[in-house]
């Protein structure tokens, strides 16, 4: 059609401004799309922090608090779970597996987790991925420690290196400096709080506290490591436990059992539900990001509008000529609107293409460095809707200059402006 050829030739005539406009739109589209992709990646990653665990059991508290300290290593438990209650729960026939978690000590601001070897098989993240050892092996000796990927990277630790665990969190408490731990293994990056954790056996946690009472070191008492290795150490209490049930059907029944446990006030939470709950709180930030990128798109379209409006003066002549040879107002409006639509369309196309190129090229790095898995899939229907909305926005943005130029052409009459 001749109108599109005219629009195209006219654009070609002003290709630098046109190109810049297309670039501005494409960058904004790229920003919007990447934010959307990273957002869904972050959401999936967050929801995938724990998977395969049916319930988390701990002392009675809010579900958020229990989730925060037992999974995210944030905050401290208000109370412990006694070993007796743990055993009681572990012996229930519905329980397929149970992993105890004992927190409270730290190493240079990284949390130390006392657990069993089962932790490495039953703790799952994303959709059912198990933790894997990058170097070394899981703890076998009482004073072995398996460290997360971030711990190893930040502190530059190697297999076989000896480290000291501090009592409590932060640097105020004493140190278990007579009983150094040897790094036996380093875990592969998972993008979960596991990366920032040091793992020892439950017995080790007991062993380093043999000479402690009421949170303080008993002066003069230093049981040597070799003797500790021979002791039959049994914890009195743990922080919480991850529970897997025989069948998912039993979750609600078992949850009720734990919540109504007779000898001690306990709570059982479903991690998925608690994660959802938490996401609704921190999800506000993602909306803010989305709003910002939408604003950038609006800015780009306004920029295009400015560009078209500012060329109107120089194109006034062109429009008068077209009017004089019989182009009607509809043609003039179509000419300018189609220009806006062509620019927006090209911007969107370029933006989508560059988004995919960018995502594909940084995907590996982002996954290994931040543990964020970005799904590089075809645009979802909601993303298509967003793109369509931008195109419609471009169309609408073309209407104002078009209408204005038509008004000018009427005012100009037969006069060709110089």
């Amino acid at each position, binding site marked *: 059609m001749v109108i599109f050829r005219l629009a195209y030739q006219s654009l070609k005539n002003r290709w630098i401004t046109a190109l810049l406009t297309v670039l501005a739109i494409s960058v904004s589209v790229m920003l919007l799309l990447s934010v959307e992709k990273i957002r869904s990646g972050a959401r999936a990653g967050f929801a995938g922090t724990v998977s395969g665990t049916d319930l988390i059991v701990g002392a009675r508290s809010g579900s958020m608090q229990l989730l925060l300290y037992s999974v995210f290593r944030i905050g401290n438990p208000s109370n412990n779970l006694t070993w007796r209650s743990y055993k009681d729960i572990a012996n229930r026939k519905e329980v397929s597996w149970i992993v105890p978690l004992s927190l409270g000590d730290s190493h240079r601001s990284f949390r130390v987790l006392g657990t069993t070897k089962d932790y490495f098989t039953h703790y799952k993240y994303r959709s059912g991925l198990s933790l894997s050892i990058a170097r070394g092996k899981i703890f076998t000796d009482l004073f072995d420690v398996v460290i997360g990927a971030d711990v190893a990277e930040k502190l530059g630790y190697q297999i076989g290196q000896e480290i000291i665990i501090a009592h409590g969190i932060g640097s105020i408490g004493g140190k278990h400096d007579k009983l150094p731990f040897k790094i036996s293994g380093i875990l592969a990056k998972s993008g979960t709080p596991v990366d920032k954790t040091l793992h020892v056996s439950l017995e080790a946690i007991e062993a380093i506290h043999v000479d402690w009472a009421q949170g303080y070191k008993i002066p003069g008492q230093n049981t040597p490591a070799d003797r500790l290795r021979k002791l039959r150490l049994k914890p009195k209490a743990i922080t919480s436990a991850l529970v897997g049930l025989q069948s998912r059907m039993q979750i609600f029944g078992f949850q009720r059992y734990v919540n109504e446990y007779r000898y001690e006030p306990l709570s059982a939470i479903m991690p998925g539900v608690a994660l959802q709950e938490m996401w609704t709180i921190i999800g506000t930030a993602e909306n803010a990001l989305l709003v910002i990128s939408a604003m950038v798109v609006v800015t780009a379209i306004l920029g295009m509008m400015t560009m078209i409006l500012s060329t109107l003066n120089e194109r006034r*002549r*062109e429009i008068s000529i077209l009017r*004089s*040879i*019989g182009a009607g107002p509809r*043609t003039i409006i179509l000419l300018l609107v189609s220009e806006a639509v062509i620019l927006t369309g090209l911007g969107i196309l370029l933006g989508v293409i560059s988004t995919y190129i960018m995502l594909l090229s940084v995907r590996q790095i982002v996954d290994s460095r931040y543990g964020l898995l970005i799904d590089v899939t075809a645009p979802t229907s909601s993303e298509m809707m967003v793109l369509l909305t931008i195109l419609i926005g471009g169309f609408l943005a073309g209407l104002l200059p078009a209408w204005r130029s038509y008004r000018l052409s*009427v005012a100009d*009459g037969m006069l*060709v402006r110089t």
Partner: protein
Amino acid sequence: MNLTESQDAVSMRDIDYQWPRDESFTIKLEQLVISRGKRVLLLGDSGSGKSTLLSLMTGIISPVSGTVQILGQNINDLKSAGRDRFRAEHFGIVFQMFNLLPYGSVMDNVILPLSFAPGRKSKASSQGGEREEARRLLNGLGLDKEVHTKKSTDLSIGQQQRVAVARALIGSPEIIVADEPTSALDTNRRHKFIDLLFSQVETSGATLIMVSHDESLGESFDQILRVQDLLGTRNRGEK
């Protein structure tokens, strides 16, 4: 009345026009009749309202009252889109300067009006094809083959004006309107341009209405009309 039966190319009566947003500026025209096939010069200084007159004649603007008949058709009876089509079909227009679209070749510029005028398009096609017809006109106006493919911005002003004449003539519209087509040319080129314009208009048999302030052009026209005599204006200078 059929278009082909009317002896008058232009017949304007009792025109009253008011600029939209400026009521103090009005134009009145009692009568203006131009017969078919005539070459008419409208003499007037800038500010005399001649551009407004041409806008009314070609239907770009509409009068508050009065009739504008072109080739027997009352163009004010037409809707806005109809007037645009009517103008495309029956008028070829040449401006003072800057006639051509800065993008696009000479050839594109010449055949452009045909897209808006199916009647002229078929006439041009029957005369050996659009491009062939454009070439014939350009050659007749002294523009050689190598000019045809040039970008219009690469031409001299004189050449541009001649391209504009070819564009006005293509598809043989009945009326050629030229608004000060020579004012951007120097004196010796002016007469050469007028000669070329006349010979081409004669070949096509069109009516020529030319507006100028240059009285020396008068001798070659069939009829000379002074815009001041035609219009009762109270104006504050041409926009």
